């Protein structure tokens, strides 16, 4: 534990104590020292978690704190790399994929529904026991009963196709389907209310309390801290793959939780003077976005950060710019380059060589007459190979021979080698190791000093320290603009969660 916060110290003794009504001799699930790694990123580093029967645990933390990974481990979707995973009296071995533990069900953040199937058929997929003659009738009865119990007045019919339902109702189906399980002991709800309206949210929270009173254990992950404080018996705060606070929900406030999620800021990486020197260029684009701190404005020579929780409209703003919706561009998107965050789906050309991936954005500049000029291409590739320092493969090898971090460097080089003066970045550093990050940050600062403009969506608050100005997004709107020394985690969290 790297920080000494009275909030955390006060919390520790509570963990071992039996719950108030004392019926909790053996925990339903106990995790000890669970670790899990994705490539260079340590998503979980030694998590302890004890779930006792009949308690509701709230789990909060910033993006990338490891909440979802922990829930994937708990739900048996991912196997932990090490640590003890005990369900009842049984110990599940690490590094072995066993499927969901008995009695544990999870409502995943991205829904696990088939849009082309009906409500009944989606229930069939989830509940293996709904088989044999008349399974449709039984599935329909089950879903209707549960829907009526959790969301009275839901307006969903068992024969409705999921794809025809609005997102909120799809979410209801997913929740209801999981709660309809037999022998349920632990229910994990990962952001269940993000698509629900206020009424449905209250219905769900009241139902959770009823089930918890009946002995079910529930884990609720939510960015809406008010809901967590309303329903949880105990709140866990995660940060950097660890549980940093574990405390009974008594006299706990919104501010306590935000403080526990935050970082003690390390020394500023970029001096304020250097930042002031930037940001003085000519305005290069604007984008009208709703919100009190709108519109979005950017200047040449400036690094503009887009912050906030993930999926609050940042990517949509970048895509709107790519579609030529920004002001000051005159609809000319050729002046923009885009660095994708989701490498696999919209970054690399998986079958192409490193060199062809690198030059993909510059084909216009590498032409001589109607054809590509091999000499010009080779010169660009060689220049950037030196600048970004690609190790492990020659440039004519397939891009998939590179590690994820090196692939991402190639994507950066693709944008920076182009003639684009404005570079849009869609959270490109997800899953990239620290060494690569440092190199890329340096490149970005060099290029900004040379007059380029960067618009950088990031979910990692540390990265915002490289920015001259930051816009904080919430629910599709820009709710705050931070400059200079105001760019810190506390301010970003405050703007992201303020309700």
């Amino acid at each position: 534990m790297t920080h000494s916060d009275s909030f955390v110290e006060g919390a520790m003794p509570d963990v071992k104590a039996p719950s108030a009504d004392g019926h909790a001799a053996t925990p339903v699930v106990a995790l000890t020292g669970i670790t899990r790694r994705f490539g260079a990123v340590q998503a979980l580093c030694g998590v302890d978690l004890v779930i006792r029967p009949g308690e509701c645990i709230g789990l909060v933390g910033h993006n990338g704190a490891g909440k979802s990974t922990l829930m994937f481990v708990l739900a048996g979707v991912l196997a932990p790399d090490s640590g003890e995973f005990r369900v009842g009296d049984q110990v599940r071995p690490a590094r072995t994929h066993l499927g969901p533990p008995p009695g544990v069900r999870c409502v995943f953040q991205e829904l696990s529904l088939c849009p082309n199937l009906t409500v009944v058929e989606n229930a069939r997929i989830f509940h293996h026991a709904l088989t044999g003659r008349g399974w449709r009738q039984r599935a329909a009865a089950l879903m209707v009963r549960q829907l009526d119990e959790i969301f009275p007045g839901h307006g969903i019919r068992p024969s409705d196709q999921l794809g025809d339902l609005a997102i909120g109702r799809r979410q209801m189906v997913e929740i209801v389907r999981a709660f309809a399980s037999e022998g349920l002991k632990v229910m994990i709800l990962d952001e269940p209310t993000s698509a629900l309206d206020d009424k449905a949210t209250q219905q769900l929270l009241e139902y959770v309390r009823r089930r918890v009173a009946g002995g079910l254990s529930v884990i609720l992950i939510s960015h809406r801290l008010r809901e967590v404080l309303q329903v949880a018996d105990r709140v866990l705060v995660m940060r950097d793959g660890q549980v940093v606070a574990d405390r009974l929900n008594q006299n706990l406030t919104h501010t306590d939780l935000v403080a526990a999620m935050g970082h003690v800021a390390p020394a500023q990486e970029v001096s304020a003077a250097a930042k002031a020197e930037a940001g003085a260029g000519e305005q290069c684009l604007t984008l009208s976005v709703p919100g009190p701190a709108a519109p979005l404005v950017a200047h040449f020579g400036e690094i503009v950060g887009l912050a906030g929780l993930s999926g609050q409209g940042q990517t949509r703003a970048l895509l709107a710019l790519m579609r030529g919706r920004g002001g000051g561009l005159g609809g000319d998107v050729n002046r923009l380059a885009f660095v994708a965050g989701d490498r696999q789906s919209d970054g690399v050309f998986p079958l192409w060589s490193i060199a062809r991936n690198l030059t993909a954005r510059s084909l216009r500049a590498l032409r001589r007459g109607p054809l590509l000029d091999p000499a010009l291409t080779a010169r660009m590739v060689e220049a950037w190979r030196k600048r970004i320092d690609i190790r492990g493969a020659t440039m004519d090898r397939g891009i998939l021979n590179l590690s994820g971090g090196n692939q991402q460097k190639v994507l950066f080089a693709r944008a920076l080698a182009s003639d684009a003066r404005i570079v849009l970045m869609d959270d490109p550093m997800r899953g990239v190791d620290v060494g690569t990050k440092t190199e890329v940050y340096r490149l970005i600062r060099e290029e900004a000093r040379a007059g380029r403009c960067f618009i950088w969506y990031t979910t990692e608050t540390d990265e915002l320290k490289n920015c001259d100005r930051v816009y904080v997004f919430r629910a599709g709107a820009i709710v705050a603009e931070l400059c200079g020394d105001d760019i810190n985690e506390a301010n970003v969290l405050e703007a992201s969660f303020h309700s």
Partner: protein
Amino acid sequence: MSASSTAAGSPGRSISALVSVALLRRLLPAASFVILLGAIISINPRAGTYMGLTLILNLAVPLVLATLSQMLVIAVNDNDLSIGAFVGFIACAGSLWLQSSPWMTIGIFVLSIAVYALLGWLIQAYRLPSLAMTLGMSFVWYGFAVVMLPAPGGQAPAWLHHAMTWRPAFIPLPLLISLVLAVVMHMLVMHSSFGVLARGLGGNGRALARASWSLLAIRAGTYAAAGLLGVLSGVSLLGLATSGDANMAGRYTLLSIAGVILGGGEFVGGKVSAVGAVFGALTLSLVTVLLTFLSISTDWQIGSQGVILILVLALRALLQRNSDAEGPVA
């Protein structure tokens, strides 16, 4: 699955307009069949008799089976470019040996269904593109067929020929078979657990994996069922043609895909309709008949067939877009 239930899920839309568009879309396969049949009968009224219908729809049965096979593959987001060559291969094998050594021939059929299952397994296990795999397989099946039967020949067993030319009371055989196939396949695809899983794999494979289903088993099983329908298609084609030829079903590959799409299926997303696919295949076989009745020279027939196909699909795309525009913005 009625049109009205589809509409009821998303309030705040003009329900009546939506029902009509959804209904039109659903009725399009049947409507195009009826319109073509009406055109043919108006040119030659005798086509509407028992004998006339039997004759003009005779060759539809193998195509209906091939289309249903293709429909299963499309339900899991794949395409089978080998179905035409496969049907030809089955017909050739049958023409050579079904009469003389029926058990060995059935063994060959079972083995080829196993190859289909293996293909599905490989495609799932190694994330291979089905287009490339089945295109490769089409040359394999065609190669086998040519080696077995270098020139058209062979002989269908008499019982098979009799079965395919049987005259049931009241309803012409091709329509009877199509009706039975439509009902059976509708039950399998829309109402059985297997059908739900196969369409679920097309809709969102990860949801199935999360619910601890074996995607390998589902895709392999779907391909095996597609292989079985391909075998039935080949055998029925042999019964009608009485002799075999490696090239005899080459057109089926594209026609079967067109039939599935015409019948309301979609290339991705696990949206298929068995009843629609049957109508799609029947419609496509009527197009050829109509063009012959219009005395269009065979030189122009394939082109005209394409034009009719494009018209129907364009109409469908138009109906689709209208209903999408009214739908919720997800």
